[in-house]
């Protein structure tokens, strides 16, 4: 919108070029409102605006008038106690100045910007060959400026953050250059455990029974296993483990007496703290056959490897398996067997269901048996003829969990079971190297590289540091700095490793590592390689890549290469997360009265956005598809949002009709959710968002004393009525004439992006607060009535009439420059880490001018951007 205004006003007022006089109109305005203070021998703020000639060629002049523009725009000038220009006069000055400055303003202005959290992590991972490196949760989040968290102004360095960097630097250095701890020596321990030495947890299929631990067979070890409560391997090594076990079988078992041996398995677990592990993901250590005939304790011994911190877990591997995520088929067979053998059993199960809240396994077993033995069962129920289909959920909701409780209890009381009577562990008998220390040594070797025999200490250190510092500082290291670091490493350290440790710690907190866009002047190949790489992959340039020269061809080639690489997913995630707001979704809790919304639904929404953007990038579809595409990505989770009947949890490409209500940035559920508050929609918020992120003409913030509008959920006043009220004031209308019609056009999307034709009205439950919880599960009955119909119509300032979002989309398609300019600006801010200067806006105009939105796509846009003067200027 604003762009058209500038061009229109500029044309009407006549262009002011290169030293020509200010037109009378503007000279008059500047004279009237500014000259009293800003002229003469000692102008206020050293700002002299007198003179009829403006020399737009002089950078100083341009800079001065940029300040004037800023002051006028923020209404800081004229000061509150001086006569104020009218709104029209102010706008006229701004438009005129904006036009001039865009034409003559300088390009560039990125301030030194430190690596943000994601960039820091990716950089360390590359630098030290450690793909698992991550900063701790205690690391502070970065602040955004101008919409993105990689803009210099926002990336502040505070003392606590620097302290954290220092701490991390020490940890990283310790990892590859550990202090000398002397040769490792095995320190043997011995530990014996009686049955009470094993951990007892409910949900545990293994249970403590008199003087033994009774094992069951689930893959989920919390349901079946035994593990020591106290023992932890202090060193990685070989341990001798003996276990005494025996079978438990009685005549009261449901099963036939077992003929084959019972298999006792031993696994390694990571720690005693954690209760939940799944067996098929653990390292198997040993396996024993327990003789079913021998009703005496049998002892088994083995030597196993345990890594530092690990403990062992015991399981009976081949009993009647139950409640296994992977093996539901096995338990289904078991269940069928059980149900076909005893109809009363099934009837009891259907009657008792999961029992009452808090029921224990033992209580459930006894109540089931009471029902089976009694005469309170409906044996003619037709459900008894079909097996239950539903297998998931918690104890009170799922047949297979009810059965689990019964069967496990039965096996504990009557068998079959495998009892563990005691265990003993001794070791380490010898030490072993664990995976972690092996990986660490590999990283250290990569860091140090080869050392040929005849190379002197200092030369070796210099070689290592030359390579490391060039990589860390993202440019070939200069000799002076290199020697400084080498001296640091060589002085006062007995071991070379210790000296290098010190050098690494210093490099990782040096401004040359932490900051980009540091050097003044023209960007050279190193600067551009880094800028390009962090733009398109949020990572430092790979060692193998380099720009041989600063030229359009090289930049194009390199950006295409990066876009095709796997790391471009970082760009997609980071850019869409901030531009389209998907990062905010994790903090929004949709009102349960709207729908039940789970994490996987949220993930699907985000995936749709990212996959859509990725395809726009990879296939280079014409830019017009951002507004009106014929595809999107969905899975079954999104059916509740979009209607539709997509099957499965995998995201799939779906075809859309062009000109429809869904699809594109104006139809994405993620955008609708990010621009609402989870409970109600806020048309003003959405209108402002559209102006900022799609049309590229943001409005200034509202005056400080305007309260937010609280939606009238009783439905007495429509949103439209409330909005109309504040447009009665001319000064409010100036912005709201632009905001409101856009926001209202999106009113058909509810706070989670579903299409609606009426506002919802929530009914109050009749019996007070207690019922309200029932309402929370929308699928348990209607909790809402239909409210007033939604009126999404509106009129844009240029007279265009909108009936709904579909008209808005058509309008944008017919005026693609608006969106293309906006997207280009956003990408440029993200790429250069600075708010756009006036000169940059000129460059953006040129880029947009070159592109045909019906032919050129996102990839073309990015390449044009990278080749532009704005990208190549600091």
């Amino acid at each position, binding site marked *: 919108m604003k762009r058209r205004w500038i061009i229109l006003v500029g044309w009407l007022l006549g262009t002011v070029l290169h030293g020509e006089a200010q037109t009378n109109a503007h000279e008059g305005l500047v004279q009237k409102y500014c000259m009293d203070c800003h002229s003469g021998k000692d102008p206020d703020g050293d700002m002299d605006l007198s003179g009829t000639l403006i020399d737009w060629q002089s950078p100083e002049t341009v800079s001065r008038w940029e300040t004037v523009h800023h002051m006028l725009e923020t209404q800081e000038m004229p000061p509150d106690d001086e006569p104020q220009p009218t709104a029209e006069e102010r706008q006229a000055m701004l438009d005129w100045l904006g036009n001039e400055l865009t034409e003559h303003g300088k390009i560039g202005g990125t301030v030194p910007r430190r690596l943000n959290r994601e960039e820091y992590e990716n950089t360390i991972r590359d630098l030290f060959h450690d793909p698992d490196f991550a900063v701790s*949760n*205690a690391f502070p989040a970065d602040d955004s400026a101008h919409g993105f968290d990689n803009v*210099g102004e926002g990336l502040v360095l505070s003392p606590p953050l620097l302290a954290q960097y220092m701490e991390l630097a020490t940890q990283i250095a310790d990892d590859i250059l550990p202090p000398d701890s002397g040769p490792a020596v095995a320190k043997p321990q011995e530990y014996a455990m009686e049955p009470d030495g094993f951990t*007892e947890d*409910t949900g545990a299929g293994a249970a403590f029974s008199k003087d033994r631990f009774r094992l069951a067979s689930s893959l989920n070890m919390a349901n079946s296993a035994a593990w*020591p409560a106290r023992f932890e391997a202090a060193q990685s090594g070989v341990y001798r483990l003996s276990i005494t076990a025996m079978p438990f079988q009685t005549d009261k078992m449901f099963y036939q007496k077992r003929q084959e041996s019972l298999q006792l398995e031993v696994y390694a677990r990571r720690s*005693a703290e954690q209760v939940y592990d799944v067996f098929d993901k653990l390292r198997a250590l040993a396996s024993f056959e327990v003789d079913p005939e021998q009703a005496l304790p049998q002892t088994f011994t083995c030597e196993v490897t345990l890594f530092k911190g690990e403990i062992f877990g015991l399981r009976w591997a081949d009993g009647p398996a139950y409640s296994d995520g992977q093996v539901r088929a096995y338990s289904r067979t078991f269940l069928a067997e059980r149900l076909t053998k005893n109809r009363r059993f099934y009837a009891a199960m259907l009657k008792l269901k999961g029992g009452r809240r808090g029921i224990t396994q033992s209580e459930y077993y006894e109540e089931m048996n009471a029902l089976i033995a009694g005469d309170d069962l409906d044996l003619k129920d037709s459900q008894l003829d079909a097996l239950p289909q539903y297998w998931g959920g918690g104890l009170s909701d799922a047949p297979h969990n009810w059965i689990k409780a019964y069967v496990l209890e039965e096996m504990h009381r009557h068998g079959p079971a495998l009892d563990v009577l005691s265990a003993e562990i001794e070791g380490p008998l010898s030490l072993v190297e664990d995976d972690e220390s092996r990986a660490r040594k590999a990283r250290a070797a990569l860091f140090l590289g080869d050392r040929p025999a005849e190379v002197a200490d200092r030369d070796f250190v210099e070689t290592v540091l030359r390579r490391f510092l060039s990589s860390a500082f993202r440019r070939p290291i200069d000799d002076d*700095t290199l020697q400084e670091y080498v001296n640091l490493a060589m002085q006062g350290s007995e071991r070379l490793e210790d000296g290098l440790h010190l050098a690494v710690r210093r490099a990782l907190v040096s401004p*040359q590592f932490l900051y980009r866009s*540091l050097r003044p002047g023209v960007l050279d190949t190193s600067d551009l390689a880094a800028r390009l790489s962090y733009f398109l992959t949020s990572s430092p340039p790979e060692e193998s890549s380099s720009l041989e020269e600063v030229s359009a061809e090289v930049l194009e080639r390199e950006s295409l290469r990066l876009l095709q690489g796997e790391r471009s997913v970082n760009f997609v995630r980071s850019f869409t997360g901030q531009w389209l707001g998907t990062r905010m979704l994790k903090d929004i809790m949709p009102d349960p009265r709207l729908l039940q919304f789970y994490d996987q639904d949220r993930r699907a929404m985000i995936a749709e956005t990212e996959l859509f953007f990725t395809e726009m990038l990879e296939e280079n579809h014409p830019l017009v598809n951002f507004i009106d595409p014929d595809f999107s990505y969905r899975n079954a989770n999104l059916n509740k949002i979009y209607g539709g009947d997509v099957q499965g949890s995998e995201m799939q490409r779906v075809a859309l009709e062009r000109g429809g209500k869904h699809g594109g940035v104006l139809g994405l559920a993620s955008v609708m959710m990010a621009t609402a508050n989870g409970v109600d929609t806020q048309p003003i918020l959405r209108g402002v968002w559209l102006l900022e992120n799609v049309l590229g003409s943001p409005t200034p913030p509202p005056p400080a004393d305007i309260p937010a509008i609280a939606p009238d959920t009783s439905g007495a006043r429509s949103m439209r009525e409330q909005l109309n009220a504040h447009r009665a004031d001319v000064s409010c209308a100036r912005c709201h004439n632009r905001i409101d019609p856009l926001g209202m056009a999106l009113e058909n999307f509810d706070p989670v992006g579903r299409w609606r034709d009426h506002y919802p009205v929530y009914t109050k439950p009749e019996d007070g607060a207690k019922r309200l919880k029932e309402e929370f599960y929308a699928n348990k009955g209607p909790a809402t009535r239909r409210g007033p119909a939604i009126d999404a119509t509106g009129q844009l300032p240029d007279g265009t009439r909108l009936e709904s979002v579909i008209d808005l989309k058509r309008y944008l398609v017919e005026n693609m420059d608006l969106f293309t300019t906006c997207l280009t600006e956003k990408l440029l801010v993200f790429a250069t880490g600075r708010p756009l200067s006036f000169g940059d806006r000129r460059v953006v105009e040129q880029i947009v001018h070159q592109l045909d939105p019906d032919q050129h796509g996102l990839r073309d846009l990015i390449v044009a951007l990278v080749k532009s003067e704005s990208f190549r200027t600091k």
Partner: protein
Amino acid sequence: MKTNINTTRDRRAFLKGLGVSLTLPMLESLGAASPAAAPKRLVVVGTYLGFHQSDFFPHQVGRDYGLSPVLEPLAGFRDEMSIFSGLDHRGRNGHEGWKAWMTGNGARSVSMDQLVADAVGDQTRFASLQLTCGRPPSGARLSHTREGVALPMIGRPSVLYQTLFRSGSDKARIDYLLNSNASVLDGVLDEAKSLRRRVSASDKRKMDEYLASVRDVEKKLQKQRAWLNRPTPKVDYTLPEFDPVAPDLSLECESIMYDLMALALTTDSTRVLTFLVPGWSQVFDINGRKLSAGYHGLSHHGNDPDKVAEYNLVGKEHVKRLSRFLDHLKAHRDADGQPLLNSTSVLFGSGMGDSNTHDNSNLPTLLAGGGWRHGSHHQIDREAGTRLLGDLYLTLMQRMGVKVDSFAGAKHNLNEALL
């Protein structure tokens, strides 16, 4: 049967022989020695799975209240404690709401203890310490920084012990790191100054930001080096062979953590401690009786009287351990000859109100020590809506020197109940 926890170590013998030999005078400020002097230490203890409210709060108000069975172990401390019912933050419910216990807001804001740590923290080696038993249930958090980032908690007694009473080789390493870090900072300071000379005016501002941070960290580093040169207190305490981090040993871990907390306070290693007492589905064995269900299951008792009774047994075990901790603090004298308890505010309770329904209103709140005016059960009228739990926090914080007028929606303190 499981070994009875109560006889694992002889508590009385331990108390008598609390072997703390300090080569360092207590770093008390030489202020008024009167009992009404402001408290200098803060301890916050919260149980993750809460308490049964009607068996925690007394049924009478004022001074002549009957102590519930769950709080019975605190009978000897009636005159040194106050109980508050009806207080909460009016915030979100559920396990999520527990996180807000010390922050009040639930998301991205600082916890009360950290504000206190900011005010008194630089007088001790550790500004504050955050503790738990083993690995806390996922999502369980207590202390948060100003940015709302949850602080990690030490869950292993051996790690806490090592942190407080470092051994010789550890010390040498730390000494080396601190000294060499000083030269690291010197070096990068020079690098930055040299860069600053060459860059444009607007870029200089960013370099100034960096330089200011380096100088600030340098100062803190010097302080840390000064601390390192002071002798570490020597204590005579035996840890068990293995850290009792398995969930069903958590009551044992709790006892040891309390012992180490007492040592941390008596050696003035820190003056702000928070302790999250966790709960999972572990099956406890209490006084020879194995409970019929896991701890979490008991907290969802469904108002079954048997389950409630067992839930209360666990609750009482927590209170017993608190009581022993208060005993230690009372037995130790500070530099003014006063019991350490008199200058230590101990806030005990939970961020969970009714664990059965996951309701976070009417939070169990008990304040002991600290030199406050104690002895009553204060029943706050929740319906009137004028008092918040944050009011109590304001009292605690203000008396410890934190300059704060509002917290977690609370705008006035609760001084009239405690001063």
